[in-house]
């Protein structure tokens, strides 16, 4: 059982700004109120290839994921840890993020892939973001009989949060635009 969702969004900001905003997305105290499900973001590893301009980063996200009561019963927690792996290619101007859950892996696997690339029609000023989310409930898990429902709930939650995430991204971009105009 796998469900996959694709979304696309065009930011009317250059790739440099949008990718920088992506790094700030979870950290800003003001955004923390909107993206309140993100509790902690820690950088665990970083590697810069000074020849090719490729930057690899691994971050751990701690997410507050209140589920239905039976999830609580089974899992006994409402905190979920995810690992986010990012590759930025400075030369070709691309940023790719992959996020996977670590907690609850026995029951469910959620993988989110986000790419930020210069928009083909206006590569110096616009950025296209494509996002793919796949949700897989393990067929043998204790949740199997409820899997459909859980997948649906999970998907809804993801959609809500990705809309919120986009709003935050737009705001940070605007802020950074104003900031760079002042200098």
């Amino acid at each position, binding site marked *: 059982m796998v469900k996959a969702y694709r979304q696309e969004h065009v930011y009317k900001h250059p*790739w*440099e*700004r949008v*990718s*920088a905003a992506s*790094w*700030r997305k979870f*950290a800003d105290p003001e955004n923390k109120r909107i993206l309140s499900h993100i*509790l*902690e973001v*820690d*950088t*665990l*590893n*970083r*590697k*810069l*290839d*000074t020849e090719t*301009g490729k*930057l*690899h980063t*691994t971050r*751990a996200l*701690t997410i*507050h994921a209140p589920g239905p009561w039976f999830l609580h019963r089974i899992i006994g*927690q*409402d*905190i979920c*840890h995810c*690992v986010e*792996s990012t590759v*930025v290619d*400075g030369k070709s101007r691309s940023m790719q993020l*992959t996020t*996977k859950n*670590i907690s609850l892996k026995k029951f469910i696997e959620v993988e989110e892939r986000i790419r930020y690339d210069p928009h083909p029609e206006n590569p110096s000023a616009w950025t296209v973001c494509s996002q793919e989310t796949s949700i897989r409930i393990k067929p043998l898990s204790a949740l199997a009989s409820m899997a459909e429902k859980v997948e649906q709930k999970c998907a809804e939650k993801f959609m809500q949060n990705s809309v919120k995430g986009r709003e935050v991204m737009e705001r940070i971009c605007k802020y*950074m635009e104003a900031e760079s105009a002042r200098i």
Partner: protein
Amino acid sequence: MGLLKKKDSTSARSSTSPCADLRNAYHNCFNKWYSEKFVKGQWDKEECVAEWKKYRDCLSENLDGKLLTRILEVDGELNPTKQADSKESSS
């Protein structure tokens, strides 16, 4: 609470990480470097090295080992090539 060794579950909601200040210092430095240098093609040199080292030392002292192992496993799945050519980034 985050990845750190659990003390009690009631603290789960608040950011009580003992590394929070070091983390902010590193992330601020990183963000500045990213938008002022990296995206402008100036990637010939690692920066924020001192901030990174302090923050990383704090994390490795406080991280929950079992959880970290799981994180690294998943990270390995995400980047099958990364492990092979991985070299220490800052030490």
